[in-house]
């Protein structure tokens, strides 16, 4: 693979990134493909998606955490980008998307759906199914498919 492009993230990358976020006490929620896995919805993904808070304080912690990646591309992130609440894509050896809202849901609105799972001694902050479904209410085709499956599953679970 070309060295100038990122490669797909692996399970080991996920653990490395999350461990580093935890060490920095960063406020984050794991969303996207890896969060779907935690609920039994398996489809391929190539990146790690995290939702965080739009403050300079959060920026420094997230940037420090992502400097764990080998190319140190996080050094190119401006802390002021966080306050502008825009989407940041870090393409280091792997891609990490840093978001401040997902389908208009923010870290603060999703906090009540937060759950922690522990893998190999690493606590991972993610969302329950209801919270994850809220992040999928977007126009993207990929999200429409995910949403349809999650909505059907949620209905079945509520009947039980």
């Amino acid at each position, binding site marked *: 693979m070309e060295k100038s492009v990122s490669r797909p993230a*692996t399970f080991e990358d996920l653990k490395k990134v999350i461990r580093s976020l935890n060490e920095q006490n960063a406020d984050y929620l794991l969303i996207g493909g890896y969060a779907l*896995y935690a609920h*039994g919805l*398996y489809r391929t993904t190539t990146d790690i998606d995290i939702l965080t808070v739009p403050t300079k304080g959060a920026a420094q912690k997230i940037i420090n955490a992502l400097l764990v990646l080998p190319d140190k591309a996080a050094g190119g992130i401006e802390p002021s980008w966080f306050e502008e609440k825009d989407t940041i894509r870090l393409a280091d050896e792997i891609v990490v998307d840093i978001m401040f809202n997902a389908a208009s849901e923010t870290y603060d609105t999703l906090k009540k759906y937060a759950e922690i*799972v522990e893998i190999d001694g690493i606590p991972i902050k993610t969302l329950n*199914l209801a919270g994850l479904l809220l992040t999928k209410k977007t126009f993207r085709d990929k999200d429409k498919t995910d949403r349809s499956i999650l909505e059907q599953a949620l209905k079945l679970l509520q009947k039980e």
Partner: protein
Amino acid sequence: MRRVGARKEAEIVYNASAEKLREGALFNDEMQKIMPQPAGFITKGAYHFKTHEEANSHWDKSLAKLVSNYGKKRFTPGNF
């Protein structure tokens, strides 16, 4: 509908599960290994997008470039 085989579909659960996350992540690792071409396609760097649409467009364009490059390599005259 006629069911062939006895493989059980993965069960979707309300509360996040460490075991399911592990299983899904390992499944993804295996799927990436069997891809016909390397699936990395975003040029390295730190990007700042004003909207999700802009971020999605960057993703799609980068993916299209990968597919196009792969096609060029595959269909070079004499490369059949």
